[in-house]
């Protein structure tokens, strides 16, 4: 579904250049759930932007469903790290934005939007404006917005970062369900190893500055999975430990900005 070959991305600013990603090779199969983990600033968001067609690659080639990525596609939904809600639209209308843009019947989808909002625990807040919500609530609205279009590919950038443990777990389960029902391809950036192990078929570990693929860990635990009580506790523990170790590795690249670590 998604194919990156030798993709690099460098940012050039007035105060020097930053090599955000270098030589990324990655193939995500249709229906696969891939988690991306890595230290802050290692290029995870940049990677998603490249795949979404929001940012051109400096080098390399990216294809989605066989077509080279030149601009955003409607069958890819992107969930940004920041909620990016339209401040003048109510919660419900924010969720319905993709519906309007895709030119679908708004009336038909209002119910579904409502259901999604209930699912994330925002029933009763449909008419509020975004600034009346807490940080975590805004993030959940943005999650609903990315789900409503039933996209074939979902790129999710730390969708649960502002949520409490419980809500997080509930939504992880929901996301898993959505994934299994719609068999969407999902690339999911997270800082939680538990989350990665719970959700992903494979976990991509990025090493920082420049962002390169350090390792890809396969998670072979059968679905549906759940945190805590499950039959594969051992395997979960092993994967978590692996990932933890990979992330802890102090591969010291000579790039700028790492002295302080």
């Amino acid at each position, binding site marked *: 579904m998604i194919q990156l070959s030798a993709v690099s991305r460098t940012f050039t600013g007035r105060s020097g250049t930053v090599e955000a990603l270098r030589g990324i090779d990655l193939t995500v199969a249709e229906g696969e759930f891939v988690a991306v983990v890595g230290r802050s600033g290692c290029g995870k968001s940049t990677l998603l932007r490249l795949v979404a067609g929001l940012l051109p690659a400096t080098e390399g080639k990216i294809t989605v469903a066989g077509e080279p990525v030149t601009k*955003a596609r*409607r069958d890819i939904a992107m969930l*940004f790290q920041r909620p*990016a809600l*339209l401040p*003048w639209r109510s919660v419900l209308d924010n969720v319905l934005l993709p519906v*309007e*843009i895709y030119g679908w019947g708004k009336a038909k989808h209002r119910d579904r939007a409502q259901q999604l909002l209930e699912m994330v625990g925002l029933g009763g807040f449909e008419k509020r404006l975004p600034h009346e919500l807490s940080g975590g609530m805004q993030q959940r609205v943005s999650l609903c917005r990315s789900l409503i279009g039933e996209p074939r590919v979902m790129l999710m950038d730390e969708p649960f970062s502002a949520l409490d443990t419980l809500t997080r777990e509930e939504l992880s389960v929901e996301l898993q369900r959505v994934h299994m029902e719609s068999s969407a391809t999902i690339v999911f950036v997270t800082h939680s190893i538990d989350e990665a192990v719970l959700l992903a078929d494979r976990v991509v570990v990025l090493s920082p500055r420049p962002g390169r693929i350090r390792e890809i860990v396969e998670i072979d635990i059968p679905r549906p999975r759940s945190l805590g009580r499950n039959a594969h506790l051992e395997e979960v523990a092993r994967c978590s430990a692996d990932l933890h170790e990979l992330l802890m590795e102090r591969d010291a690249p000579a790039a700028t900005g790492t002295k302080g670590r």
Partner: protein
Amino acid sequence: MTETVAASAPVPASPDGPAARRRADGLATVGLPLAGLVVAGVAWWLTTSVSHLIHPAVLPPPGDVLAAFRAQSGLLMKATLATALETLVGFLLSTVAGVLIGLALAASSVLERMFAPLLVAVNAVPKIALGPLLVVALDWGQKPILTMVFLLCFFPIVLSTATGLTTTPADLAELSRSLGATRWQAFRKVRLPAALPQIFVGLKVAMPLAAIGAVIGEFEAGEGGLGFVIVQFSGVGDTATAWAAILLIALTSILLYFAVLRAERLALPWVRETTSAR
């Protein structure tokens, strides 16, 4: 509403109910502008009637203007109505046209680079100099006057529209791109609403200019209205009546300006709530 509270330092909740507060607020909304007008009136009275700093032939004292207003009230009211109508119609037309031009400039950087200098040029021409051109091209009456209104007030609208549309917050623009929105959709759903606060600034600047446009238009091509009254009465040395007309123009503008302000309040409640006034 909540953010407005949030934006002010915490104070113990007022013992008065919201009704009392609203009344006090209403008083301030009407009372303070009136106070301002009174201050201006007193300053005027002091410089003309008391100290004779300025000769009454140049700036007649308030008493004279009031008398002139009484003497010519019928004529002045009719003229005010005519001018206000021209101002309003011209302003609405300019708003539509200005927003469309702004949109075109915002849509294409080629268009913008080609025509922005021309718009500046048109805007910088003293409109008085265009009088003959308008009259000859459009004859006398409403058409040249409305055109004059447009010429005077289109630029702030165009500029603020174009600026607003081309400075969409990056994250919202990125969102609309990620949804694969067409240009038109991105414009309608994201860029235009995000630009509205900016556009309203343009409209507020344009509003008094529209009134000037109507008056200058009447100078050149009018057969009535306050501009006509000014020419006629100041031409025969009746400065008091001319100044009564000038004050009526100012008053009309103030009212129309507050109407725009009101429209802004109604259209953009979220702006007050996501920004901090003081």
